[in-house]
């Protein structure tokens, strides 16, 4: 919004609106995605299904990857340091979370002299952004804007198709986002048929819609050191960062699924009691 307000203005937005209208198919123009998409292979996630929980060790590994590799470009602006020790998360202690917060410099102010200043982070702070604004982020990344990680695991998906999308209700499959993120990180490859990028600085990725992504392969085997014996491979990194991002996007999942089980058991018992009461009462008129 801010960009639109400052740089593009009304005319631009009216044009965008008109473009949307065309894309919506009113003029029978096809609403095509940027190109063909390849379905990401489904991974096995500890947090899938009715009893699924985040694996605290995996979230801590994912957090390590985020801190050492991703955080230099990708923000995590909706997550607070206190979230790191909250129920259902990566399972840091409060002291560990505070130490992590203090490792980050957070801008505060203005002070009595009217100056902004930096101080060590507190538990109540959110993760500071790597760039002061979108323009700075684009300038540092060849024109591309590295997306904020906070909601990405819920903001990425792929089409499940018929009839799979119906089965998903029963199987409770909700992991398109993490599957896609894992696939993206492991999906860097040589372009098929020697295709050339549409503009320089793009990289071929099997799973990115349209295949040409601005981000170079961000992580290599062995780049992040694991101390718990987990293999330090890109495949494993992909799973761990995707799990971490799912937690960042849905931090209350453990509470949600736990509550759901209690609610369903209550409804089952209450429903059964109602059913038999109803039968008893109606038996008089049948």
């Amino acid at each position, binding site marked *: 919004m801010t960009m639109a307000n400052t740089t593009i203005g009304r005319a631009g937005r009216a044009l*965008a609106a008109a473009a949307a209208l065309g894309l*919506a198919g009113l003029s029978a123009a096809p*609403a095509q995605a940027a190109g063909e998409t390849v379905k990401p292979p489904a991974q096995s996630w500890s947090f899938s299904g009715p009893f699924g929980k985040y694996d605290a060790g995996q979230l801590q590994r994912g957090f390590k990857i985020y801190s050492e590799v991703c955080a230099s470009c990708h923000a995590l602006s909706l997550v607070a340091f206190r979230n790191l020790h909250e129920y259902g998360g990566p399972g840091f202690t409060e002291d560990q979370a505070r130490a992590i917060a203090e490792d980050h410099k957070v801008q505060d102010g203005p002070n009595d002299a009217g100056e902004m200043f930096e101080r060590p982070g507190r538990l109540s702070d959110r993760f500071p952004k790597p760039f002061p604004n979108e323009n700075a982020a684009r300038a540092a990344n060849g024109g591309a804007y590295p997306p904020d990680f906070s*909601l990405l695991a819920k903001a990425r998906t792929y089409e499940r198709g018929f009839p799979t999308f119906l089965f*998903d209700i029963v199987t409770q499959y*909700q992991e398109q986002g993490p599957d896609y993120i894992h696939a993206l990180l492991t999906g860097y490859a040589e372009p098929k048929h020697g295709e050339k990028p549409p503009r320089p600085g793009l990289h071929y990725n099997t799973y990115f819609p349209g295949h040409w992504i601005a981000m170079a392969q961000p992580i290599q085997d062995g780049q992040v050191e694991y101390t718990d014996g987990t293999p330090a491979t890109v495949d494993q990194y992909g799973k761990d960062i995707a799990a971490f991002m799912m937690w960042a996007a849905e931090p209350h999942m453990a509470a949600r699924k736990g*509550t759901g089980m209690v609610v*369903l058991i209550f409804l089952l018992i209450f429903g059964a009691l*109602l059913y038999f009461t109803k039968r008893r009462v*109606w038996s008089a008129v049948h």
Partner: protein
Amino acid sequence: MQGHSTYQPKGVAKWFEDRLPIVGLIHSSAVAYPVPRNLNYFWTFGGILTFMLVAQILTGVVLAMHYTPETTKAFLSVEKIMRDVNYGWLLRYLHANGASMFFIAVYIHIFRGLYYGSYKAPREVLWILGVLIFLLMMATAFMGYVLPWGQMSFWGATVITNLFSALPGVGTAIVTWLWGGFSVDNPTLNRFFALHYLLPFMIAGIVGLHIWALHHVGQNNPTGVEVKDFRKETVPFTPYATLKDAFALVCFIAFFSWFVFYTPNYLGHADNYIEANPLVTPAHIVPEWYFLPFYAILRAIPSKLGGVLMMFGAIAVLFILPWLDTSKVRSAKYRPMFQIFFWIFAANAVLLGWLGSRPAVEPYVTISRFSTFWYFFHFLVILPVLGLTEKTRPVPNSIADSVLGGAPATPASAVAAPERNG
């Protein structure tokens, strides 16, 4: 309607009743009210819908306490609800999924009315009030979807409000007036929030009239035959209908809970977890599932104005349905040809929904046109003609004949198995 209140207050209650007979009113409409004894479980959706309306208003009022209707803060305020408000995730998922559940229930309710001819005399006004509620629900749901200010919120609002620009002459001026500016922006979000808060109370008002009309003319029933003998053919609302409705409601809440607690984003769109950006158009702009059949009709017509008129016409035709269906027989149980066309219509409606989710390319466009044609053909041609030409099965003389097995001049195979409400 017969069988009215037997409420006989004493003491303070009588003193109060003489001054404001509201307890007697509640007693006559929710306790003594006579219910046809042969209703099946499709008749429990009225109660379920009332519950959903109340649930949406309650969760919505609390959400509004935490929400900020301003373009730079709306998306973040919703995320704050999801992350920092106690049980905020539960409130928001209940409200967002609740909208879908509301529509699932209302579609079942409408198709029940279509199947059993519940729109026919003397229930035309009851039916029209229902169509009005449906229209208001769609307006409310559409504006509610804009509030989180995600990509689909913004672009959905842009596409739908732009439809009015198709009106000749005044179209552009109307769209500018709707937006409160020259694009979907802060004034649009503000007024959508105000209206999203207002409309549910208007729905509640019309629901009151809908129930009033229902209690005046009495419920239809699977035979479509009016109640003749209240003593033999009806049961008092409480405890009979109350318990049956309660059981159906608990089953529905269990279904609802499955989505809220286990697949809360299944019915939503991933793009709405990206903050609205007027400079980036999503690859596919798709409305929520409950609008898809109407969206398919909109896109099926090559002219924009034509599409808009057909889309609104698809709902307008429901208003005159009581006069389009010429058959004297209400229930599809005794109308073999109508039954076939009913199921074709239902399948076609689902097909339209699927087509609405597809991009506007071949072969979907051509199929959409056939499907749209059939939607209107069903109402405007099949129903009037069928009522005059169809050979119906013998209708039982009374509900009692149908329920208690004393089948009169009807062959045994003609009347379906007696409705058992267990």
